[in-house]
């Protein structure tokens, strides 16, 4: 099962290495990992999407990450009310005939064409992973030349409705 874990970490050299090291050592399968600065200087935030086998493993994941000295806080936010976004850049083969067709296709996704050349267009799309997936499926028939995805970055929503009973793991009360 897929878990979305966010970690607040001290922005120090080697911290990414330590985190991926823990995941590798404990045999966690990383789906994606994103890192970036936060509103506080010296503190970064990571969003890690991993595949785990069961709840026990999910619990171990947050606990083991929490043991790292440079990790300030770890939260498993799977099942909570979150906003999650991913950005993808997709280079699609296009002829003058298909160009406008592709333009029409991407519009409902609120994606935009950010580069045009004689043989291809590059599309930028942001959204949750399912939305990106859907657009990729639609574009496949035209021929995808190149694609890059950032991986998911996620946030708890400002107000939390009790959306599910799924347990979340945090060591902080």
């Amino acid at each position, binding site marked *: 099962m897929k878990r979305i874990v966010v970690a607040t970490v*001290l922005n120090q*050299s080697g911290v990414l*290495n330590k985190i991926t*090291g823990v995941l590798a*050592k404990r045999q966690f399968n990383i789906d994606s990992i994103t890192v970036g600065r936060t509103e506080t200087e010296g503190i970064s935030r990571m969003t890690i999407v991993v595949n785990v086998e069961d709840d026990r493993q999910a619990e*171990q994941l947050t*606990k083991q990450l*929490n043991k790292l*000295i440079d990790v300030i806080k770890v939260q498993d936010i799977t099942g909570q009310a979150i906003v999650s976004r991913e950005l993808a850049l997709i280079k699609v083969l296009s002829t003058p005939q298909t160009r406008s067709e592709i333009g029409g296709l991407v519009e409902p996704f609120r994606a935009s064409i950010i580069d045009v050349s004689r043989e291809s267009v590059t599309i930028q799309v942001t959204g949750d992973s399912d939305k990106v997936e859907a657009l990729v499926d639609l574009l496949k028939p035209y021929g995808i030349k190149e694609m890059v995805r950032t991986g998911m970055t996620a946030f708890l929503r400002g107000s939390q409705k009790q959306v599910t009973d799924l347990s979340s793991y945090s*060591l902080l009360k």
Partner: protein
Amino acid sequence: MCAKARMDGNVKTAECTGAEALVQLLVREGVEVMFGYPGGAVLPIYDALYNQPVRHILARHEQGAIHAAEGYARVSGKPGVVIATSGPGATNLITGIADAMMDSLPLVVFTGQVGTSVIGSDAFQEADVIGMTAPITKHNYQVRDLRDLPRVVKEAFHIAKSGRPGPVVVDIPKDIQQGTVEMGENREVYLPGYQPNTSPNPLQIKKLVEAVSYSEKPVILAGAGILHAKASDLLLKFAEKCQIPVVNTLLGLGSFPFRHPLFLGMGGMHGTYAANMAICECDLLINIGARFDDRLTGNLAHFAPNAMVVHIDIDPAEIGKNVKTDIPIVADAKEALQKICSEDLQNAGTDEWVRHVKAYAENFPLWYEDDGEELSPQHVIQRIHHYTNGDAIISTDVGQHQMWAAQYYGFEKPHKWITSGGLGTMGFGFPAAIGAQIACPDQLVVSISGDGGFQMTLQELAVVKELNLPLKIFIVNNQYLGMVRQWQESFYEERYSYSTIPVQPDFVKLAESYGIRGCRATNNEELEQVLKSVFEDGGPAVVDCRVKRLEAVFPMVAPGAGLHEMMGVKP
């Protein structure tokens, strides 16, 4: 100590080199002794150590230095301090760092590093120590800015000894050691990501007390967490008050007195029948400071199948890792036991249960055959116990002799038992005994090794001679890698593939070549004579005990079997 010192009003500040600052910081942390080996990238530190009050023990191999520091930490409870040079010096420490991590020993390890300007250029004796030690340390640091040094050293000691203890590596590039810095004031440690919880949740303690009051068949599993927390007295109080039998883990030996009527011995792969059956049959298992290691639990599917499990551990990640826990208590063992003992403890009447498990102990005791001709290794351990009044600090290596020492020495007091449990490091025991002797110069320290393990770190005999340490070094010599051979006998159809080592030095002459007394015992009679004279003698001695070659450690839980499926329970 510092090159220049000046007075600014009332605030005394002093300018010194990074290396001098380091030595000063070690003194500030109360370090009395460090173990190390010099080399190119730590020359400035060694220069700063010259004629300084911090004592430095020069090992003959970095691995010897770090195992000595582990032995020192184990018996003293203080962090062991190690120093080695960059590259090979640091990589030679890796085994010891991993060992300390597995057995939760507080170490602060300083390694030299090539200058900051050449890091990453594959310079001479460069190794990525931070990358290599990240998975086997509690934390590690590379000092890139000399101004960080005081903070880093302070944090390193704080992290190593607080919470669940562990090794911390501090990698210091050579130019940082040579730079000049102004020593600041001693500041408080601020680590937002590290605030170990030591006090138990009162609600969980209430649950535990309630569980004890209902339980008819409770068992306490006492691990090394009791020793780290110095909570043996409280454990005794709790066990006696509620009349709960106690099982020790390998590393927990000594946390409960061996001869106490509630003690069932060590549990696990080579544990006693009584201990393992008590775990299998209990209805309440109270784990205090043990981590449910696979060598203890055997097949998890058969582990304490009917028990409600209480787990008290300072490391939240240990709880629920291997065994499903009903009452988790994240706390220091001492604080938890204090809280428990302050409650109104009731028990549901455990007399019948205690009688039941003690009957196991009487009917299925540890056994071995002694024909009086060849020397039995178990007999050797029992005689060492006799001559030391069971009061010596015992350090062992890894293998058969380790299990025999654990089974037959019978520890009455805490902090007398040094062994490599989690990592199972051959070559650990002898240098660890050196560290223990340095920590406790007035106590009798006995090193027990196999002939295989002793040959891995025997170069440290030079340290014994140099410091004239009154160590008694026993080699349980069967000319085999005994535990490997035993497994090959039991599980690989007696195909003794590369486990026979009949070609070995004459250990008596070897000891003598170092200027240390060497003795040999080949039968019971010789053993008595040798033991008598060796323990009467105030100096060091190496005793080569030629024991039965094909003796095996029993009883045993075969790998993959449950604790109730023991073999070799009876002759």
